[in-house]
């Protein structure tokens, strides 16, 4: 104990003696620790998706892979009877459950309706598959009866203000009453399928009839609709089900499959792997991109390294001052190992002091961090033993990392020389410090280029011409039947305001999911060939509203009278994919096929649109068919083009008009460009994180440089005086320092450039539409890093250069 006290005293004294340097070290380390820790929290949270469910390693999501005419279509949802039938066939399956979204449900509270996005219909077995802690109710019975609902504690609080609400009822906008049969603790945010409420699937059975609900006919196996999960028995493998699946296919699916020229393969993903699975499934939940985790991990490591380098630099730079202490200790019998331990102890202690400050920083910035990382960490999360243990681990690691080199360096001083008064040669130390500073700035430059490239790519995607005008379009969701039945009148009413330029309805929109259907197209020799094609339905006004450009032919027109079910519009990509090229007009086209070769929609191509990006710019444009319908109940969106710059007034006008048509249904709208930008949500988040940490990295590196340059100018005070005596001006003195440090920074840039280019080019490969990494990025990075370094250095050297030479010459 007295040992510790002794070293503590030494440390505190050393700290006070060099307060400026010590504070730089302390805050650099604190920023490094706080950053590393927040990044760690983020990564841990991401890597533990769905792991909070008991025996999550035995829970699989079933997935469907349809193969129509050699084209694969993969889905995250499966056929309605798939899971129960598999359960009957295969003893490996312990239990199963199915979930499907209860879309368009609004719940009443005090006569006002609120939309709930995350309410699903679920089989009563859902709580067998997914473990929940129930606050109220019995998990086994809660979802057995029709019209039962189980809700999360936050949903209970929202509608009832309390959680003991068993037996209470929730009313929906379609006048159904659901009885609350259970309340569960909110599901952690890192769950791929996160729900706030579950309605018993028997409700659906009651509505559509048991027979249809339990239908296992051939047709029901060629229709996908639900998220299906199975839990295997211990010590069984999902592969044994895959192995036996061909027999299942023969028994339930082959007959119809052969008729429609299709095939089917069952797939499944372990639930804890869903968030980072790379398979591209339709109707999948939003997923994460693992490469961003690696990037973040590196960023965290970078900041820690940079902060540790500050410590190493300043500790060794000041070593001459501690040489006498080392000499005395050695002469008094301290061996090298003891000294190493002493110095390591110091750095670890400082690291702990930094941790205390870091904890303060973390608490302060946590809300901000949540905002830009789209996470929901609470201070309470930070106090769990595992998290504290990691914090402790990071702190000790940083302490050791930063103390290692100084410890060995300091402890290797020769006591005889020191005590004789021979100055300790700092040659090796000085060049090592130079190397470390170069390393710090290389990392910073790498980060600068990285964040520049990321944000330019994002700007590029935001501003790229998508082939239509995505600005000034408000998309109203059409969930209520009242509005859908009166759609034409509603549109006319809207257009009475000069703020509304056009309005058109559609089943989908750029930025939303598109259906894929098997259609028939005219082949080379006039025969009809099947193709699975992206498509959506539109009304007469939609194409004009969106501003899609016509390549050849015309758009749908009321005056023709023949367009319904007989006219088709495709994009250029489809025309070229079908080898029609500029002869697409008049080609035969069929949709809603019958098995005998006829089709409910049978007609010809009347128009080809210029290609437009309806999906993410990650991917190339695919063939697309826009079909006309007058069945308003299909439409999901009404896109309204408004006068530019009048968003607020236009929304008010739409809201009021809408209320006149249907006062009870909540008004929901989105801006088209915003929904399209949803594709890049993850990139936006990573870009923000990248920017913040780039600034931090540069800041910590500059902090270190500030300390080092202060030290060097101090060391060179006499030389500065001498140079001034010999005729140098103050400006020349400052220039001398800038030249020196500037050179290091330039070297750092040259080192960072190839790495930055390589990794950012790799990142850009994620995008089909992408920017080029121009020389501009490198020039900006060079300028920024030089600027940061020069500001830092000139402050110190300017101070020194102003000293009267008679003062500086006295300096020894």
């Amino acid at each position, binding site marked *: 104990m007295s040992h510790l006290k002794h070293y503590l005293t030494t440390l505190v004294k050393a700290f006070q003696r060099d307060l400026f340097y010590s504070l730089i070290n302390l805050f650099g380390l604190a920023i490094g620790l706080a950053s590393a820790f927040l990044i760690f929290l983020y990564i841990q949270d991401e890597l533990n998706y769905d792991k909070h469910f008991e025996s999550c390693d035995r829970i699989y999501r079933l997935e469907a892979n349809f193969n129509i005419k050699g084209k694969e279509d993969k889905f995250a949802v499966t056929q309605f009877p798939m899971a129960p039938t598999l359960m009957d066939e295969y003893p490996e399956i312990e239990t199963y459950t199915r979930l499907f979204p209860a879309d368009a449900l609004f719940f009443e509270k005090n006569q006002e309706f609120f939309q709930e996005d995350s309410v699903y219909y679920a089989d009563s077995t859902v709580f067998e598959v997914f473990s929940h802690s129930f606050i109220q109710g019995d998990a086994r019975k809660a979802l057995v009866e029709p019209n039962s609902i189980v809700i999360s504690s936050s949903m209970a609080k929202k509608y009832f203000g309390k959680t003991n609400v068993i037996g209470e009822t929730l009313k929906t906008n379609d006048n159904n009453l659901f009885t609350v049969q259970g309340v569960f603790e909110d599901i952690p945010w890192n769950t791929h399928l996160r729900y706030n409420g579950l309605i018993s699937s028997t409700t659906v059975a009651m509505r559509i009839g048991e027979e249809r609900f339990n239908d296992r006919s051939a047709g029901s196996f060629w229709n996908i609709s639900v998220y299906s999960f199975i839990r295997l028995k211990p010590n069984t493998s999902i592969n044994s089900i895959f192995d036996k699946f061909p027999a299942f296919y023969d028994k339930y699916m082959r007959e119809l499959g052969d008729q429609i020229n299709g095939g089917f393969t069952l797939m499944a993903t372990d639930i804890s792997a869903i968030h980072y699975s790379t398979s591209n499934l339709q109707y999948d939940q939003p997923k994460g991109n693992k490469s961003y985790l690696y990037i973040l991990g590196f960023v965290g490591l970078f900041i820690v390294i940079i902060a540790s380098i500050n410590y190493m630099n300043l500790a060794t730079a000041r070593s001459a001052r501690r040489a006498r202490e080392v000499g005395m200790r050695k002469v008094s019998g301290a061996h090298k190992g003891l000294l190493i331990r002493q110095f390591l102890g110091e750095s670890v202690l400082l690291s702990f002091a930094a941790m205390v400050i870091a904890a303060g920083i973390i608490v302060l910035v946590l809300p901000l961090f949540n905002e830009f990382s789209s996470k929901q960490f609470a201070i309470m999360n930070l106090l769990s033993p595992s998290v504290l243990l990691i914090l402790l681990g990071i702190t000790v690691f940083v302490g050791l990392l930063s103390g290692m080199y100084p410890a060995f360096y300091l402890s290797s001083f020769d006591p005889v020389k020191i005590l004789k008064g021979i100055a300790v040669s700092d040659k090796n130390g000085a060049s090592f410090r130079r190397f470390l500073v170069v390393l710090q700035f290389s990392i910073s430059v790498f980060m600068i280029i990285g964040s520049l490239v990321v944000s330019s790519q994002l700007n590029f995607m935001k501003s790229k011409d998508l082939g239509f005008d995505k600005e000034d379009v408000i998309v109203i969701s059409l969930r209520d039947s009242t509005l859908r039945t009166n759609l034409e009148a509603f549109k006319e009413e809207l257009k009475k305001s000069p703020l509304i330029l056009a309005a058109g309805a559609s089943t989908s929109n750029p930025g939303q999911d598109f259906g894929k259907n098997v259609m028939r197209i005219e082949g080379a020799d006039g025969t009809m060939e099947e193709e699975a094609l992206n498509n959506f339905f539109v009304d007469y006004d939609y194409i004009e509203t969106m501003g899609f450009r016509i390549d050849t032919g015309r758009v749908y027109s009321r005056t023709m009278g023949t367009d319904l079910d007989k006219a088709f519009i495709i994009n250029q990509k489809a025309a070229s994919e079908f080898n029609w090229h500029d002869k697409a007009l008049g080609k035969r086209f069929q949709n809603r096929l019958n098995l005998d070769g006829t089709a409910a929609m049978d007609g010809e191509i009347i128009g080809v649109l210029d290609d437009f990006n309806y999906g993410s710019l990650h991917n190339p444009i695919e063939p697309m068919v826009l079909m006309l319908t007058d069945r308003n109940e299909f439409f999901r969106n009404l896109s309204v083009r408004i006068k530019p710059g009048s968003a607020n007034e236009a929304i008010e006008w739409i809201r009021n008009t809408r209320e006149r048509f249907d006062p009870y249904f909540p008004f929901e709208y989105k801006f088209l460009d915003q929904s399209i930008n949803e594709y890049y949500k993850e990139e936006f988040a990573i870009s923000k994180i990248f920017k913040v940490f780039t600034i931090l990295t540069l800041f910590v590196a500059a902090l270190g440089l500030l300390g080092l340059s202060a030290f060097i100018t101090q060391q060179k005070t006499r030389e500065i005086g001498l140079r001034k005596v*010999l005729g140098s001006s103050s400006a020349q003195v400052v220039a001398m320092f800038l030249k020196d440090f500037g050179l290091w920074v330039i070297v750092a840039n040259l080192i960072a450039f190839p790495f930055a280019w390589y990794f950012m080019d790799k990142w850009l490969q994620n995008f089909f539409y992408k920017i080029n990494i121009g020389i501009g990025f490198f020039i900006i990075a060079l300028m920024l890093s030089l600027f940061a370094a020069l500001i830092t250095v000139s402050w110190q050297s300017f101070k020194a250069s102003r000293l009267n030479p008679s003062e500086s010459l006295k300096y020894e």
Partner: protein
Amino acid sequence: MLVTKNLYKVFKTSEVETTALRNIDLDIKPGEFVAIMGPSGCGKSSLLNLFGLLDEPTSGNIFFNGTEVSNFKEKQRTLLRKGNIGFIFQSFNLIEELTVSQNVELPLYYLGFSAKQRKLKSDEILEKMNILNRKSHYPQQLSGGQQQRVAIARAVVSNPKLVLADEPTGNLDSENGEQVMNLLKELNKEGTTIIMVTHSAEDAEKADRIINLFDGQVVTENIRKAI
């Protein structure tokens, strides 16, 4: 060359106020060799710093070739020093990271000479100081006497009219000390004004005039030789 009138220098720290120089009136003629003597702390070095425009007087005037310079700004002082005043120090004050040649070239560099001219002039002066063979060495590789010869070379390479020497032989043995004094004498013969602070009576003997300082005041002036 150098005239001072009623010169005062007061050093202030937070606790004490020390008057280093009081009421100094001196007139140093061009081509003179002046030695300043006196016990430690009598203000010799302070006076030399004022002569060299390295420091500002608290009050009083300094005229350099007739121009009042005591209230010169930092920039003006630098400009005046350049090429006009050379300095020699007791502790040589060579820059360790630079070679002998580079040290000598430094004043020429600040005067804006081209690299070629600098090399030419520095070689010439090093030759004269009899140390050209060491021009690529670093100061630590030289003996004290050699270092001081390099320092003198540096002080005079730009042909200054005035050379200020602060105990130039203080760190040298007698043999090397004598060599240095002879070099200074030679420079003086060639027309350079030299003001030298020294403890050594022997060195002072080489000067035309000896100024004795005590407690910041001039006590005696011995003119040894008529000009």
